[in-house]
Every structure is written in structure tokens, then in C-alpha cells.
């Protein structure tokens, strides 16, 4: 019986944003700035996390990191946030991580975050991947279709020009960044909560 099975398993959902467990974060973020980066994430001795692809080729210690996402001008939508996810050229890992937001482990509905199948109902455009020739018009159109006020949140290193040289911000105005390659579900939730103007601490 499914019901008994479900009850026996208990609560599987993450306590984030109250608490973040070690299980939920990848161990692949550089903890110090390396001297140089083969993929151009280091400039003038400073590490740009937005461009770090977590390749672990540099000679620094690696570990877990939170609080990396940056959001300018958040929306005052504390009660519900509707998100449209648009893939403009990912490696499919970001798609999987976004899909996992609906898994029992993260369950974003408890945080009043909802995904919509159309940009016309969305407050936030969640974009992943480096924009390809085929997807640039789609990206622009999706942004145009969204009602005001609207924000664009960018997922992952390749949407910030790490691998392909193209950035999402070259085509639509960007309000927030979630670093990681791919960003883990907890990091995506963090970015979305910040866009909704909610505390993540």
C-alpha cells in the first residue's frame, strides 16, 4: 500500500532555508582564489564564482559553499512566486536540478514557489545554459511576454559566459545569478528566495 509506505518513510524534505545539511551541497567549490584558471574565472587574483565551472583543476582546497547567489532589486513577492524555466542551451544537468526542486527532498511548493508552463504567468524567468543561435529569439520573446514586474535569474556558469563566451545578460536584462556547474537544488532555492525578497538565513 502506497499510503502505509509513505507514512513509514517519514518526512524526507530538506529543512532549508532554516538549516542546510551537508548532504545537499556539492563538494566542488574552490574555497580560496587560485592563481589562475584555465576557463577564465580568475581575474586580477580574484575568483569570479559566477564563471567557476567547478572543474577542480586548480590547486586550492575544495568544499561546500552557500550564499553565493547575488540578486539585485528583489521583488516584494513574499507570499507566492511563479517561475518559468527556460533552457537556452544547457548540458541537461541544470534541467535535472531544476526538475529535482519538485522532488520530496526539496519540494518548493512548501516555500510558495510554483513553476508555470508559460512566461505569461511568470514573475521570474529562470534561464540556464549558454544562449544558442536558435534560442536567442525565444529567450527575448519569453522575456517580452512576461508581465511587469519581472526578474531574470540566471543559473549556472555557462549562462555567465564560462564555456561558450556568450552570456544571457547580453540579450535580456539580468537581475540575479546562481553560480555552480550545475547549481544544486538548494542553491537554486536560495536564488529564488532572494528574488522574492525573503531571508535565506
Amino acid at each position, binding site marked *: 500500500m502506497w499510503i502505509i509506505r509513505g507514512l513509514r518513510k517519514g518526512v*524526507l524534505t530538506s529543512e532549508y532555508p532554516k538549516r542546510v545539511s551537508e*548532504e545537499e551541497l556539492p563538494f566542488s567549490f574552490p574555497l580560496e582564489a587560485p592563481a589562475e584558471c584555465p576557463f577564465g574565472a580568475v581575474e586580477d587574483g580574484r575568483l569570479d564564482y559566477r564563471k567557476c565551472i567547478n572543474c577542480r583543476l586548480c590547486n586550492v582546497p575544495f568544499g561546500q559553499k552557500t550564499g553565493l547567489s547575488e540578486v539585485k532589486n528583489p521583488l516584494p513577492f513574499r507570499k507566492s512566486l511563479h517561475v518559468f524555466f527556460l533552457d537556452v542551451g544547457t548540458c541537461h544537468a541544470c534541467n535535472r536540478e531544476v526538475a529535482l526542486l519538485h522532488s520530496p527532498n526539496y519540494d518548493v511548493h512548501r516555500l510558495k514557489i510554483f513553476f508555470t*508552463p508559460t512566461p505569461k504567468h511568470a514573475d521570474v524567468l529562470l534561464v540556464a545554459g549558454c544562449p544558442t543561435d536558435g534560442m536567442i529569439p525565444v529567450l527575448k520573446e519569453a522575456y517580452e511576454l512576461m508581465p511587469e514586474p519581472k526578474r531574470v535569474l540566471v543559473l549556472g556558469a555557462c549562462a555567465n559566459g564560462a564555456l561558450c563566451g556568450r552570456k544571457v545578460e547580453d540579450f535580456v536584462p539580468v537581475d540575479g545569478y546562481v553560480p555552480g556547474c550545475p547549481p544544486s537544488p538548494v542553491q537554486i532555492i536560495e536564488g529564488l528566495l532572494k528574488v522574492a525578497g525573503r531571508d535565506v538565513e
Partner: protein
Amino acid sequence: MMALSAVFRRNGNYLTVWLDYDTGEALIRKEERLPDRKIAPALIGETTPYIRIPAGSNAVPLTFGPAAGGLGQAGAFEILTYGERIVSIRPVYGYKRRGIEERLINRPLEETIAVLERAVGNFALAYTYAFLRAVEANPDEDVWEVRKGLLEIERLYNHFNVIHKLAGDASQKVATMHFHWLEEETLRVLNRLTGHRYGFGANVPGGVRILDGRAVERLGKLKEEFRELREELLESKIFIDRLHNTCRLSREDVIELDAVGVAARGSGVGRDVRAFDRFYSYKPVTCEDGDALARLMVRMEEIERSFEIIEGIDFRALSSDPEVREGLNLGLAEAPHGDVLTLVELRDGRVSWIGLRGASRINYVAFCRGITGNIFTDFPFGLHSFGLNFADADLWQGGEE
């Protein structure tokens, strides 16, 4: 019989790869003309031009994608329909052509691997397995044992994802969540094991990066959980009825379209790279029916086999110093959805040319053959039973198109 596995453009000619799945014999040929196989245009072009509108039909063309919520990825299908039945359908490739593959060339091998992992994220361990098979001249048995284990863990979470999607399509809300949970738990095991949720950076030239080998012990619990869930799910008549006879692919279709992987095995054609890979001793799982249910049963059985293989492996960080094989070499790996192929040319220890072929490029065409004649509500069941993605289908075919 030889199957046409890949076609690449190179210096104005075609480089074709033919594969005999019974013996593992591979043939790389230089040809001036495109081989006379149905799949050949799809392997080289952006679409499959051989699907035609029947004369006198009142069907209307419809494009599904590339931003459609149902697909969840940048890809599209052109569908010919008169409302309910799918008269004809073809995949539209090219929306995901990112040019990432050009960044594989002429850099140190460890950087090439880092880029290759980001070509197709959820099959990264399979691609690096294939690439390193092509590159390493005298492979170290112990290192490959661990790489094999990582590949099987990748198979686990991808198969769980497929079952989760199929259960979701049939509105089995509870089952779909349980399988989604299994997928996430497997990713967490991989995270503990390699330091990355998708295993990026685990396969490095000559070695494997393992942080905590004991993390795989947690898979034992997941195995028990999976067995119970499988039993419960397959008892649901509603679920089985939705999959039975949906998106049927006959044995002849598989041979004609050179389909690979789970799609071929579900139709009784035992095409599996692991059958002749020197690091495996494996007999392919097959099922004769060719419908979505048959492909699900193949996956269920393969999950069991993967657990078995993983149990026999001692996961630990290892490094070796194998020689690098110069010249043009072929590497194969059995990814969760089908085989992936890397044709690599090395010069002075660096990649000077590379061709990549993912199974999705072939199997989307097989899916289209299978779903033709079905009705719209069967579409997600058919599509998800193949477990493909467009990032894998849109890989560069080694040159301008």
C-alpha cells in the same frame, strides 16, 4: 550485421563508423558519399528529411517546442496531425548547438575532459569513459574497475529518472515521488563519492578521483527500496495499461533505423557495448515486445544488474600513468540510454580533431517511428520511455554543416 553508428564530416569527405554489436568489431571508413542507410541523413543533418506528408491528407503541421513546458529542454518536434492521431513526426535538431565541442580541441587532456563532461551533463561519466577508452593505450585494470562502477551509478540515477517520469505521466503521483526521491538519493551518493552530484571531475586522465569510497554502502538501502517500489508499481494495472502497446518499435524497425541502447534491447535486439567491453563480463538484457512497457522492463532489470556490478567494486582513489594513444581512435561506452561514441584524433598529447555521437541522435528518430500512428496522449509515455535528451542529440558532428 554491421550497423551504421556514426557519420562525421571531415575535409569534404564523410567519416563513417560501422559497428558489429555481436563481435564488437568496429570499422572506420572514409567515404565520398553518404552511406545508403535510413539513419544517415539524421546523423549528419539537422533534421530527418525522409518523413513526408501523405498525399491528399488533411492533416496540419504543428511544431512542439523549443520552449514548451512539456519537454523541459531546448528541442522541438514537427508533428503532422489532424487532431488526435500523430500521422507523421520528426525531431528538430540544432536548438542546442552551443559550439562547446570546439573547446575540446588543442588543450591539455584534463581540460578537454572537463569540457567534455559539460557537453552532456547527465551522461558525463559515459562520455569520459568513452573518451578515455579511446585515449589510453595501456589501461590500468583497477582504475577501469572504478570507472565502470561510476558508469553504473550514472545508469542507476538516469533509469530512476525515467521511471519517475513514466509514473508521473500516468498520474501515479505517489510512485513518481518515490522514484524522484531515489534519483536524488543516488545523486547524493555520487556527491559523497566523487565530490560532484553528477560525477564531473571523477574521471581524470590515468586515474579516478574518489573522496569517500564508503558512500556506496548507502546504495544497499536504495536497492531494497527499489525492489519494493518495483513490485508495487508493476501491480498497478492502470500504469501497465498505459505503457502496454504504446510506441511500439518492431525488430525490423530497429534494424532498419540502426537504433541502439534500451530502444533496441526493448525490441529484442541485444545491442549493448558492455557485451564486448573488455572490462565487463555482461550479457545484454532484452525484452521482445518493443513497446514502452518492454523498455521499462529492460531498465528495471538493468538496475538490478547495475547494483550487482557496483557491489563487487572497491571504490577508491587511484592513479596510474598510462601511455597516450596517438592518431585516430574510437572509444565506446554504454550510457544509460544507449551507446555513446567518441572518435578522437590525438597529436602530441592533445586532441586535434574529435567527433562525438550520442545515442539520442539516433534514437529520437526511432522514437518518431514508434510514436507514428499513436494518439497524442501516448506522446509523453513514448518519449520518456526512451530516456533521451536534446543536449546529447545536438552534439557537433566534427565540422561545419
